[in-house]
């Protein structure tokens, strides 16, 4: 049964909008992350991508993960979070301005 389920699983989603077709909730979050991260340097594109994600918790998780991996953009990313838990966790990056300094 398990093999059957995996065998039927769709190929890697080609677009952000296709991510929810994945069967695993964690894989859906990872898929969203992988599609959005390349657009990080383009705020307009980032906002458009985020608008495609209805669930605000999923959206905030995405923003938090991006902030951790790109502390120099944390200020912008954390500002876009809306849920108090995400905003609190964002402080772990936002409240540590040295993290965005570049290694010499």
């Amino acid at each position, binding site marked *: 049964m398990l093999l059957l389920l995996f065998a039927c699983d769709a190929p890697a989603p080609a677009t952000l909008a296709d991510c929810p077709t994945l069967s695993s909730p964690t894989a859906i979050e990872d898929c969203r992350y992988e599609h959005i991260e390349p657009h990080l340097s383009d705020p307009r594109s980032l906002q458009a991508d985020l608008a495609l994600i209805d669930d605000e918790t999923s959206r905030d998780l995405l923003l938090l993960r991006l902030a*951790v991996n790109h502390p120099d953009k944390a200020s912008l990313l954390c500002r876009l979070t809306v849920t108090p838990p995400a905003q609190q966790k964002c402080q*772990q990056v936002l409240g540590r301005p040295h993290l965005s300094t570049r290694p010499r």
Partner: protein
Amino acid sequence: MLLALLLACTGESLTPAADALAPWPTEPEEILARCDQEPFAELAITCRVQAAAQFGVRGQAERAQSVCEGLDAGTWRQECHFRAGEELGANGHTVAGLRHCAQAGRFSRNCLTHAGWRMPRDPDTTPDTPPEQVVAAWGELAAQGKGALAGAPDGVDNEGLDVLLAQYGFNVYVGSGKLNTAPARADVGLGAAADWRLGGALRTGFATEAARILRDAGQPVTVEAIVGAWGGQPLAVTGEAVPDHLRLGRYHTPIQSPHEAGVPHLPLYGGGLRLAAEDPSEDIVIAALEALYWVPATVADPFVPWLDDPRERVRRTAAKLVRLTRGEAVDVEALAVRLSAEHPDEGVRWHMADALERRSFEEREAGPPPRRLQPPPGSGP
């Protein structure tokens, strides 16, 4: 239904986003258990950093060490050591904190500042402690600090010892309510064995405490009163002890004139530097001027008469402090224009010219509130 069953078998959460955003537990071992379940790699990292910080709060330096060592080398491992170091420092484990700071890579200096400046007072070293004991306690702390900072990035070891020294001198006196001069004279008469740097740090502490006592009692804070107390003339008021977190004052960043190369300097509480004099009777005047600056309400005016002191280091200290303060009756800008051209001491001229260039006296026109130097333990981000 099938999917839920399958996920239940694999142990995967149905709500990974909500789970990942949920607040961390308080206990570090519980945080670590949570990190192990975290499916998102970057949040597993920040989770471990949080655990290391909480081990630091509890003084468990070794547990924090193993957590940080488990992270890949780079920014977040450095941050892990930084968080552990500052929390250890804030909770009275200064040396253990410095050991983490030494591993914090490019954040080592920030870490030293947070860990070292939060070193709490030691009840066994006060102004009433026999000077030999104060000297011995410093020797022990310095040796431990040196060991902890071994292997730190270039220059961090010396900077760390400077932080410790300044904080030690500050801690012996400030907040004690006592002005026994004996510890601050510990370097006098010891000849070649004298540690003038320790003596100087203790004189800074003595002068700062005298200023604090006068300020807290609503009395005028003057160099003359502080130097008088050093000479045995009691202050007009009796000092009262205050807890660590009420030892609030103003500090500055290091400003060194090119004309002061080779002149001995001492670290100040908060990260600045002051000129030091081998003669304690001159050194206490310098310390008193710096203590005046530590009182946030002090304006430029009381520093101005010292610009013409016959002692070079006193003049230059006054010049540095004039440039950092707004004037009341004194127009600092006009004074700087005049003195940058006319003062016979090139060191004073340099400070005045640099002040005009940087407008450093203007930055304080608005009268900033006193900066909090010692947040209560555990209040870090």
